[in-house]
């Protein structure tokens, strides 16, 4: 079983990032367009199964439960009870009535959000950021825009490292950075300023580095060290994703 899981994980990792992006887009938009929310939850179940198969099940479930339940309850409360589109009442709570239209809408929105979230999470876990950008630039995306995307994706781990360094420096000077929630908040707030400011300085220095390493130099067509291939499986999956998107449009058109 472990071997099968590993080979599925390898297969997913080897997919062209453009294919993965297209699948994320088609699943999310398709479920948003389809009139009923149940397709969305079906797709979400499939994403959880895929997550389990590639060894990311626990994390995907944590994401869905941690984000999905509060958001769904909030949407159900707002849309289900107070949507102006509510015509068919399905429950009476005394202080307000729950409408079918609003409830369905809330479920659709929450399922779409969760699909985007879970699908993006799986994509990021199975794709290197540099591969994604290489694939995008090889498909014609502007090199500078590609760098912008990649640098933005990499900024979070860099800031985390910086926070850790500053935190250690403060700890070594006697500042308590662990303990209760209030204590940690107290220690964390003064960190925000230095982290943000040093990140801005870093951005300036990075700009200098890029210039000295010939970034954006005119005349030469940039090349990439990372080779992104489009296999037969990529093409089949892209076609399935597009078919899914078109089929979700059909109930609206017909």
């Amino acid at each position: 079983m472990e071997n099968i899981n590993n080979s599925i994980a390898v297969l997913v990792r080897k997919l062209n990032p453009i294919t993965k992006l297209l699948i994320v887009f088609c699943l999310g938009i398709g479920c948003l367009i389809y009139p009923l929310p149940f397709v969305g939850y079906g797709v979400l179940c499939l994403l959880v199964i895929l997550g389990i198969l590639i060894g990311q099940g626990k994390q995907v479930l944590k994401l869905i439960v941690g984000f999905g339940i509060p958001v769904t309850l909030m949407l159900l409360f707002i849309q289900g009870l107070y949507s102006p589109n509510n015509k068919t009442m399905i429950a009476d709570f005394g202080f307000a009535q729950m409408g079918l239209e609003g409830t369905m809408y809330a479920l659709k929105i929450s399922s779409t959000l969760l699909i985007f979230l879970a699908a993006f999470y799986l994509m990021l876990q199975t794709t290197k950021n540099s591969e994604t950008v290489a694939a995008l630039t090889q498909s014609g995306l502007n090199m500078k825009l590609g760098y912008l995307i990649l640098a933005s994706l990499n900024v979070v781990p860099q800031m985390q490292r910086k926070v850790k360094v500053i935190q250690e420096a403060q700890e070594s000077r006697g500042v308590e950075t662990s303990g209760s929630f209030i204590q940690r908040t107290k220690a964390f707030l003064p960190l925000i300023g230095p982290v943000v400011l040093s990140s801005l300085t870093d951005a300036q220095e990075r700009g200098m580095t890029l210039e000295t390493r010939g970034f954006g130099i005119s005349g030469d067509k940039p090349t990439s060290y990372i080779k992104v291939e489009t296999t037969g499986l990529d093409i089949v999956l892209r076609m399935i994703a597009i078919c899914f998107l078109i089929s979700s449009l059909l109930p609206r058109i017909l």
Partner: protein
Amino acid sequence: MTSTLIQVNHFSYRYNQETEVALKNVHFEVASGEFVAIIGANGSGKSTLCNALVGLIPNYFVGFSEGSIIVDEKDTAAVSVGELSQTIGLVFQNPFNQLSYTADTVAEELAFGLGNRGVPREQMFSKIKEIAELIQIDELLDKNPLELSGGQVQRVALASAIILEPKILVLDECTTQLDPIGSRQIMNIIKKLNENGITIVMVDHDMERVAKLADKVYVIQHGTIVLGGTPEEVFCSPHLAEFSVNPPDYYEITKKFIKPGYSERDFALTESQAISLLQEVILYEDRNQKPQA
């Protein structure tokens, strides 16, 4: 015949929000294949000069400048830093500033500059392998550059500059994070690059090293070049101490032995000079003691 590769013509520069000038009437030339060292106290303007040589000043930093810097017949103010990078490379003082922050592996990091130049992917592999072996980072190629130690990043930073094969390499204290052995290894590589024709401009605080490697030394103080010449001329200058620069330790130690009769020479700046001087001293002592015995 050696041609002039860098001409700094009465160059002055002031940062935008500063009242004092960072560089004042700096004027010198660097010939092709020369090894030039820039020395001076902290805050004297060495890094600013490095940034000016590669065109970051005045192209990138906002400020006020006068005079000109001509690198390989190109005025640094008239061409982009990217264009200049084909001729002149810079290794930053902080090696982490050299990273592109877009690479997941050291190999990708090294390939970044090559990619910008449009070097075909197949050629990248051989170049990366060659440079990684030279700088001794071949074991790091698959590692994340952000997870390396300071010394390892310093090697990667140097490799990322050398891989672009610049005619001139500007090194701004490029061994600060390395241990003595690593530092010596890197300096041997730089020396070899210089012997192969690459012009080196190096900022350094290690005076022994400067005396050993440099053809010319410039002392900078408060943004002005106050002393220049061969290592012998600079380190034996009676004014050196006024500029907060000490000569190599060998100079101070061997000065004690230099008195009429011991040696023909006036000074020893490097390890090999000091050794041969001490040998002369021992021989002199032997010669003068044997008859008495």
